[in-house]
């Protein structure tokens, strides 16, 4: 069997519904999406979103994510501080979940996407399958980073109801939501088909 892509055969694949259209069709006849052979300016857009994510990652980690007020005393907590607190309360499992979701996942996601962009741009013919798996991974795990923002939202609402403690959302919460959103946009604007383009597929047996 000859390995051939839809583009080489003269078709455009719709990324939403998977329908093949002739190369000169502008709008997908099945789902009305605007068609392009590959996502327009995929690498540029991905890189731009990634830069934004890296910039937002700094305030997200160094500024406090929430303030705790008790008897006119203020405490502020950063994301890392929250993880350390949980660890000291011996909630090890939850501490690991938060640590993974808030600190490890965003970094890994940014690194993987940077690697994908660079590898597509410069050396094209290594580890395609691994890179595909990596890309799929970034798409799946990205949303789970939002967990810390939701924790703040719940705590803020709970302690506003009454009691001696008040919790106020900090500036890092919005920055962190921004990190999650921008990395999700970065993953979405990366076109995984670029990993496999320029591979010499003609006549290759599979």
């Amino acid at each position: 069997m000859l390995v051939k892509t839809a583009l080489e055969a003269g078709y455009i694949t719709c990324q939403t519904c998977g329908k093949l259209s002739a190369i000169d069709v502008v709008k997908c006849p099945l789902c009305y999406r605007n068609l392009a052979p590959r996502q327009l300016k995929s690498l540029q857009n991905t890189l731009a979103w990634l830069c934004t994510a890296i910039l937002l990652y700094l305030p997200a980690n160094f500024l406090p994510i929430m303030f705790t007020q008790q008897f006119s005393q203020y405490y502020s907590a950063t994301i890392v501080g929250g993880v350390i607190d949980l660890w000291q309360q011996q909630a090890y499992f939850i501490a690991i979940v938060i640590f993974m979701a808030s600190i490890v996942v965003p970094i890994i996601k940014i690194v993987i996407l940077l690697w994908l962009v660079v590898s597509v741009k410069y050396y094209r013919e290594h580890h395609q399958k691994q890179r595909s798996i990596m890309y799929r991974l970034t798409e799946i795990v990205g949303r789970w980073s939002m967990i810390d923002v939701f924790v703040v939202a719940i705590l803020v609402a709970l302690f506003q109801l009454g009691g001696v403690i008040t919790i106020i959302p900090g500036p890092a919460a919005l920055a962190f939501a921004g990190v999650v959103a921008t990395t999700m946009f970065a993953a979405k604007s990366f076109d995984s088909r670029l990993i496999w383009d320029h591979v010499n597929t003609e006549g290759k047996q599979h």
Partner: protein
Amino acid sequence: MDDKIACLECDLLIAPPILNAKQSAYCPRCHALITAKSYNNLQYSLAFALSGLLLMLVANFFPFLIFDSQGQILNMNLWQSAWTLYQYEEHFLAFLTAVFIIGLPFLLCFTLVYLLFPMIFLRKLWFSGQTVARVFFEVRIWSMSEVFLLGVLVSLTKIMTMADVRVGISFWAYVLFVFCLSAALANLDRYRFWHYTQRIINLQRGHHVS
């Protein structure tokens, strides 16, 4: 053109898979899922989406968390997590929270019913069904109800030592809602959904149906 399909992740041109009920198809080159087991089907998806809608309704009208503070019982409902952020002038964050945990999950359930009910029972699409379906597939990744649920568990662990907090009816409804939404989305196979949509469009145009 209809006798070929392409892998969405690497654009490899392949023949449409012919599978029995327990087989899934993966791209031979990049191993992306092409179509999942067909006993995960659109009927299940519709059923779960309908139950999800009802549960979401329940989740909106009962206390989510119950806070017992010095004999005073205080209720927090589902919307309050977003609403309190709004009161603290975090308007954009409040908007994102409301959309991610209530708005989008609810809309996804509603859209699924809007799309699948006429497809399955009436063999047609309701008003701008194709556009609605495209938007559905583009925004489904932004629904974060299951992440919120994990967030609730983390918050409860964090404050267990500080306060007496119990979960209310709305919490359990939301748990079931998350289960239903996940099941509805897992049973919705992209390839089969669009294949079926195409057949309905052909039917409406009076073309030969294969």
